[in-house]
């Protein structure tokens, strides 16, 4: 669909831009600064959440909120649901997507594995922003082991 590809291309251009910027600022070749991309995701997630939850009844608890992230939130952005949700019931959630959309265009092997973290930073921010607007402070990290599948770890910060 045409509207999907616009989002995908814009996303990859934003990453390219952020990489260019960080190349100027740091001398270290290995380190790339993706905090800008993560923040863009945060702002977007925060705003989307206000709209998405408009017609919803109030969430019962944290798990209810996570289920919402896995189903409706993910469907709204990536046109599919999260394939697997796991939790230790102590504030750690693992969301697994077996065919993460930003990674499906790459080869399935290990060819581009080192670049994968760039393509998940935005989504980490998106989840964090969405949860922040629902009053759940969290740290979101991602893990890519083999190419199109991706795991998002959510650590809820309790005060």
């Amino acid at each position: 669909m045409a509207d999907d590809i616009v989002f995908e291309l814009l996303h990859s251009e934003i990453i390219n831009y952020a990489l260019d910027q960080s190349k100027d600022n740091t001398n270290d070749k290995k380190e790339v600064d993706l905090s800008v991309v993560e923040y863009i995701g945060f702002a977007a997630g925060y705003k989307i959440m206000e709209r998405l939850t408009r017609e919803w009844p109030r969430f019962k608890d944290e798990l209810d909120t996570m289920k919402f992230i896995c189903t409706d939130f993910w469907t709204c952005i990536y046109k599919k649901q999260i394939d697997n949700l796991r939790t230790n019931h102590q504030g750690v959630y693992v969301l697994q997507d077996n065919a993460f959309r930003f990674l499906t265009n790459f080869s399935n092997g290990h060819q581009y594995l080192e670049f994968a973290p760039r393509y998940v930073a935005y989504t980490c921010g998106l989840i964090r922003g969405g949860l922040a607007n629902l009053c759940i402070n969290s740290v979101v990290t991602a893990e890519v082991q083999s190419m199109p599948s991706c795991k998002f770890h959510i650590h809820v910060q309790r005060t």
Partner: protein
Amino acid sequence: MAVCVAVIGKDNSPLYIGGIGNDTSTDNELSRQWLVHTALDALEERLASTNTNNTGANTTAARTDLRDLYLGLLYSTDTHKIYGYVTNTRIKLVLVTSSTSPSGSNIRDAEVRTALRRLHALYADAICNPFHLPGDQITSLKFDKQVKTIMLNNV
């Protein structure tokens, strides 16, 4: 007729307070803030009861009711009635109507509900303004104008 509408943030800081009537007097502005803040305690109370009343026979009915975003009449004084609405993102919307004026004394609940729903839609639009930072006061003139229209037309 609605006399005042307020948007209160997650940490109970006012994001927007708008009213109609003689806008110029500062006394009026002060009384508005006062009215809105009297409702906040009642609002918190209702929200808290959603989480604690998980056992018991009659709570199932109460809980389905409390999962609704619209909380209904929170507080009424001799001159005003205060209605509340809390979004999933803990933004509190408060609407104050006058109970003394002839048109305000017989407002139906459904009317207030639709007005608050529309206010929520407007708030979501205002949040999507890229110049707006989360937690900031809403300074958008467009939002202000649309809210005033709701106040004049609906309730």
